[in-house]
């Protein structure tokens, strides 16, 4: 079980501070898939970074299976089985896809084993292992490799930040299958997404707004309520 208790996060802003997360309380149960959605800038990525220990909250606690991990750094959390696929994949000059997959795997893995994970995200594996993880890969390729790394960690808690971004529809269907392979036993999968199909696949759907949790519930409950006035819809209405 992963619990977020009263998480507050702010950044310096001119003279004062700007609050980005404002008292977030959430509980994720073992074996659950949680999908977090909400407008751009509502604080989803910030929340993911706090879960992973990339940034520290001003206030609040993060409890994993009863242990307070708020003060643990990124490495320590990774060792506890927490994995994160970044919204924007990182590029490395001189390191290959294979190098990073090997690290993600944690112990020595055969090329054929690494290849399986690339196939799971729809990349024709062997061609990619020796490619540099740099600008010569396309955005969608980088993104899929990022997801493969997180899948490889096979962690107790895995966070995917907008896995669908930049990925074509065909590959996206395969991705959903890949997420389903994580849905065994006690693992917690957190997917940040704007895709209705992903939202509908959640056990728990969380809607963020302006740094707060606006809605939590099953997709059926939540999607009934939200269908909200998007900024665009509001604009269109006011223009009428």
């Amino acid at each position, binding site marked *: 079980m992963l619990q977020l208790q009263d998480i507050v996060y702010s950044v310096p802003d001119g003279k004062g501070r700007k609050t980005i997360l404002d008292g977030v309380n959430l509980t994720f149960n073992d074996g659950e898939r949680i999908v977090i959605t909400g407008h751009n800038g509502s604080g989803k990525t910030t929340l993911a970074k706090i879960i*992973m220990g*990339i940034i520290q909250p001003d206030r609040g606690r993060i409890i994993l299976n009863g242990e307070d991990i708020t003060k643990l*750094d*990124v*490495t320590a959390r*990774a*060792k506890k089985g*927490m*994995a*994160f696929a*970044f919204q924007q994949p*990182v590029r*490395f*000059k*001189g*390191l290959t896809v294979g*190098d*990073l997959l090997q*690290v*993600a795997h*944690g112990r020595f893995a055969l090329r054929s084993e690494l290849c399986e994970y690339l196939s799971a995200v729809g990349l024709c594996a062997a061609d990619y292992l020796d490619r540099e993880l740099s600008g010569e890969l396309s955005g969608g390729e980088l993104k899929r490799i990022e997801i493969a*790394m997180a899948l490889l*960690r096979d962690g107790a808690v895995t966070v995917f930040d907008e896995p669908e971004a930049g990925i074509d529809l065909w590959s996206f269907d395969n991705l959903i299958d890949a997420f389903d392979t994580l849905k065994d036993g006690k693992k917690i999968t957190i997917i940040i997404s704007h895709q209705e199909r992903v939202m509908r696949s959640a056990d728990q759907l969380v809607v963020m707004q302006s740094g707060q949790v606006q809605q939590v519930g099953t997709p059926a409950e939540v999607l009934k309520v939200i269908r909200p006035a998007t900024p665009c819809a509001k604009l269109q209405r006011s223009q009428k």
Partner: protein
Amino acid sequence: MSLEFSALEQQMLAQIADLEGDPTGAYNVRINGESYARMSTDNVKITPKKGQAGIDVVVKPNVKGESVHIPVIITDSGRKELVYNDFYIGKGADVTIVAGCGIDNCGGEDAQHDGVHAFHLGKGSRVKYVEKHLGSGAGSGGRILNPVTKIEQDAGSNFELSTVQLGGVTRAVRTTTAKLGAGAKLHITERILTSDRQTAKTQFDVTLAGKGSAVEVVSRAVARNHSQQEFISHVRGTTQCYGRVECDGIMLDKAVIRSTPQISAENVDATLTHEATIGKIAGEQLIKLQTLGLTVEDAENMIIQGFLA
């Protein structure tokens, strides 16, 4: 014939010239100012110079797949040498030359090797030239290297130069000049690692004089502790030609890297670019590797090793 080397010499030869056991092909092994072993082949003649230190290496025209090893080792503290090596590559020949210099200094005096290498590439010839530089030894004396490389390329020739400074070199100044004829191609990769209070300076001066000639320089530098590196390059194009210089540097601790690019296009059809990026290791790279379970220190090492590979 089998060559006798001490354990230290063997280890150094393996590191600077990938030599394990006797070299195949032509070779000249220079140890502490003496030519310790030399071998010519039917296609590659190595002869000592008269009146000054160094060798002439002559590769016959149109021979393929030849190799030449010319490593230099210094283990005497206080030894300073200036060596001239000239390479004459016959037209259409294809050869790999492995140079490299290791200085192991256990004493308090400086040890220094200044090697001046001049290459004359005949029409349509291909040279792959690899040099590795390494300093070691517990002494307080400096381990100093000043390689000078002068390259003249005839039409259609191809020169691939790879220069690597593996560490332990107190002070180095690399000076490389090249003049390219029509359709000639020059590709230079440089990898330099400095630490402590070491300094390394690189100067490239390339003239693209022949129509359709091209140069590509890819330099990667890692400077740790209080070390300092400087990269100066000047590419000049006087005709339709292509030149690209890419200089990437990673600094850690209190290190300094300076880069001075200069490109002179003296013809409307000269296409010349220079990119330089210097900075510390990107925070997001460290975090990514941490999320994969590495400590910050292991993550740094992995990034640096990959970058210099």
